């Protein structure tokens, strides 16, 4: 059994190490690239959202590298993600790929199926071994998320911002060659060390921008055209409203109560949106208010074209923007997104915030 799973920001780093600890052979999906998107677009229904297309591209690239089993999580919220696994299974079968798709559905969808799927993965290991691997995997997810956030912070202050990019690029390349959790943690430690030596401007006060919106587009850098880097180069301190860590805390560790942070966001969103609208629509609104309260200077909402929950949120965010007097910009991404227009919007947004803060006195 050669396992693969879709790209999802840094999750592959932890996912790979976790499955390797369980004794599986893992084919980590290649980093998302234009080729991934081309393959995905070709084999997906046109009106499907961008994440779906990227995932299909991921699978096919991994299958060509030898994978025969795909791991994916499920969902039961009113968002198309819940149907991904079924539709993608059909697409892959139609294309003649003989692969096994293992779906981890939400516990609410029934325990027995989840248990049998889990059994396929845990490889007959003892409970102790599983707990150990799981703990390592979760640690890794947290560490990778922290590392990304650290790089974002350092980049905002760095005198030469390219230095941070070079360190991070090297880290991403090296993640492919290390094996198991221990080596991975060692690599993360080394990278953190390197980031600490980047020269920074201590007197600089960066503007702070939160990234909110659809979870996949926030987390996967290829899909959001590396918004964290682009903003970092403009001297902006970026924070993402959702990370794989926060997702796990909400949906797994604190099931069925939900994590503190997410519940607070529901509460914040309540005056505007009382109910679930699918996906992370409600969280998006809550996050916008959360960042305002946290003293951020603005937020950017990212959504894949025709993502219904985020469209609902987008319409409501206009009111939030007005009520709180808080800059909110929406960016829509799909396979047609042009980079030039994207950069223009980011630059203008940063200019706008700077002017509101009085950092620049003309214009």
């Amino acid at each position: 059994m050669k396992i693969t799973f879709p790209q999802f920001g840094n999750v592959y780093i932890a996912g790979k190490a976790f499955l390797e600890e369980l004794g599986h052979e893992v084919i980590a999906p290649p980093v998302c690239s234009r080729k991934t998107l081309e393959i995905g677009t070709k084999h997906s229904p046109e009106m499907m959202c961008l994440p779906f297309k990227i995932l299909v591209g991921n699978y096919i690239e991994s299958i060509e590298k030898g994978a025969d089993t795909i791991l994916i999580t499920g969902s039961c919220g009113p968002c198309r993600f819940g149907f991904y696994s079924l539709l993608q299974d059909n697409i892959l079968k139609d294309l003649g790929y003989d692969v096994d798709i293992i779906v981890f559905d939400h516990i609410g969808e029934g325990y027995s199926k989840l248990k049998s799927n889990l059994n396929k993965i845990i490889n007959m290991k003892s409970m102790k071994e599983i707990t150990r691997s799981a703990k390592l995997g979760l640690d890794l997810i947290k560490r990778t998320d922290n590392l990304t956030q650290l790089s974002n912070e350092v980049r905002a202050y760095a005198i030469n911002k390219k230095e941070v990019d070079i360190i991070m690029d090297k880290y991403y390349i090296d993640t492919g060659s290390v094996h198991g959790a221990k080596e991975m943690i060692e690599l993360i430690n080394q990278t953190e060390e390197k980031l600490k030596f980047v020269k920074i401007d201590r007197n600089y006060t960066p503007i702070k921008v939160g990234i909110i919106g659809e979870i996949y587009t926030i987390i996967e850098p290829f899909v959001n055209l590396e918004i964290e880097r682009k903003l970092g180069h403009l001297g902006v301190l970026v924070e993402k409203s959702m990370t794989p860590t926060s997702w796990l805390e909400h949906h797994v560790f604190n099931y069925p109560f939900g994590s503190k942070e997410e519940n607070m966001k529901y509460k914040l969103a309540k005056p505007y949106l009382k109910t679930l609208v699918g996906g992370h629509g409600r969280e998006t609104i809550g996050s916008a208010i959360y960042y305002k309260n946290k003293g951020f200077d603005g937020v950017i909402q990212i959504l894949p074209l025709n993502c219904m929950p985020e469209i609902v949120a987008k319409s409501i965010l206009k009111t939030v923007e007005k009520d709180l007097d808080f800059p909110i910009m929406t960016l829509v991404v799909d396979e047609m997104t042009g980079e030039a227009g994207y950069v223009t919007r980011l630059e203008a947004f940063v200019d706008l915030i700077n002017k509101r803060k009085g950092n620049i006195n003309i214009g």
Partner: protein
Amino acid sequence: MGLDIGSVSTNIILIDDKDNLVFKKYLRTQGKPIDMIKEGIKELEESVGEKNICGVGATGSGRYLANIIVGADVVKNEITSHAVAALGFNPKVRTIIEIGGQDSKIIILRDGIVTDFAMNTVCAAGTGSFLDRQALRLGVNISEFGDLALNSKNPVRIAGRCAVFAESDMIHKQQLGHNQEDIIKGLCEALVRNYLNNVGKGKEILFPIVFQGGVAANKGIKAAFEKELKQQVLVPENYDVMGAIGAAALGRKKAEEQGYTNFRGTKLYEKDYKVNGKECNGCSNLCEILEIFEGNEVLARYGDKCGKWSP
């Protein structure tokens, strides 16, 4: 000097130290921005001589390219440039409607500060290129387009939600036998509705409203805006080069601050620039790398994601 290298037009202007426009050149980019920059600068030198150019600002989607060739002190996005220029035209301005070749924007200002802006997201209906194309289809010169619209007494209603549907609806109205003026006016109104519903959605549009960008030449669109907003819409004299004027003002300020300019001199039009595109096979991103040569010397390389080519 200000340069605005847009998708449809390349504008080069000169302002003096009192913000008076000394030179203005509006060229059609026609997909050849480098040639147009050279042509514009050549004309600039011919008409005003080799003036002392103290600062340069570049804007528009081709601003990075312009920077490489001309050497700019400021490379600024269009939103800020347009806002700066509009404030120069009318310091009290509270709304800027800007419709260019490929994108349309709305900029909201309060007390001389940009407080909000929006750009068209995924659709280019209602921009200059679309109007260009429809004028061509109707066999009308784009410069007469607006005047024709004003002659209409009974505009037809055209579905303007999307460029493709607008076009098929327009053809349908043509085939029904509506006269040209009515169709043109209908088109103008449809575009304005589309703009206000898309770009201008949820924005508080307050007087004074300044309308700029190439499309502001179109009297039909201006009239349609006034009808829809029930307010006067101001079109500055140099509506078509406002971005360049804003960039020039920013470039001058920056050059004053730093005490020198990066400008490479007006003689640059005599040099030969070549662009060489190639695909990098270093990874699966297959970035398209552009190399810009001045003679045999590489001026710049860009287009990569990883920093292998660009400095």
